């Protein structure tokens, strides 16, 4: 298993990330800008699920911001993979990095659970106190992705 990460680190990409004066800083900046867009889109969807912006119908609101979130997520995966490749064999052993990856998986599972279970059940709801399932989904999402961001920042400290 560890050999895959060593191979990634020793690949052309890993070597380029370590030697180029442009690539590492660029990926770093992209990861921050991507995070801004991602967290913005996520938190506004979660706010809607928690009961904010009630005049706006839930479904189109969520599907519009979901597109922004997915585009930003793609930026995060690409820039994150670039940063990871520079030191893959060391970072994969980092406990905070492992926690972050686990939380991303849980966060994505929460999205799937919302789309498959929660959303079909709350189609009729447009205003008033959001159904419990919606509020739980939004609160979970906010907590998970905030912790992902914190864990990401803390990789460099462990």
């Amino acid at each position, binding site marked *: 298993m560890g050999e895959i990460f060593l191979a990634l680190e020793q690949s052309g990409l890993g070597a380029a990330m370590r*030697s180029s004066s442009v690539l590492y800083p660029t990926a770093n900046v992209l990861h921050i800008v991507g995070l801004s867009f991602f967290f913005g889109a996520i938190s506004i969807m979660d706010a809607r699920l928690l009961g904010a912006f*009630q005049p706006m119908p839930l479904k189109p609101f969520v599907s519009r911001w979901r597109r922004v979130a997915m585009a930003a997520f793609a930026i995060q995966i690409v820039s994150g993979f670039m940063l990871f490749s520079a030191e893959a064999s060391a970072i994969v052993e980092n406990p905070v990095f492992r926690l972050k990856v686990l939380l991303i998986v849980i966060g994505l599972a929460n999205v799937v659970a919302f789309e498959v279970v929660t959303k079909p059940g709350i189609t009729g709801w447009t205003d008033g106190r959001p159904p419990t399932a919606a509020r739980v989904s939004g609160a979970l999402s906010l907590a998970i992705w905030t912790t992902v961001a914190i864990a990401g920042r803390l990789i460099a*400290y462990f």
Partner: protein
Amino acid sequence: MTATRRIALAATAAAFLGAAPVLAHHGWGSYDAAKPFTITGPVKHSVFQYPHAHVTIDHQGKTWEITLAPPSRMESRGAVADVIKEGKVVAAFGYASTARDAEMRAERITVDGKTYEMR
């Protein structure tokens, strides 16, 4: 309190919680800043790469890995790759890692009578 206001409050609280570790300078959290010391010796191995340049120097029976600044910052301070190449006698002033054995984070290095700040 309206839901919107409640969420704004929660988001503000989350932002402050998230900001706390960021306020500490990156990379210095797990180093013992209370006990700075100097390692002086010839560079055994030199790596001038992102995210941080580093050198290894023998010190008190151990080979220390000394973490320096990113190459772009090293170059802007005049500490180009040749300054820290193998064999150069480097005096590194910094802090020992509290997480890893024999790792130092250098505050500054002195080579051939010239001092280069690492942050």
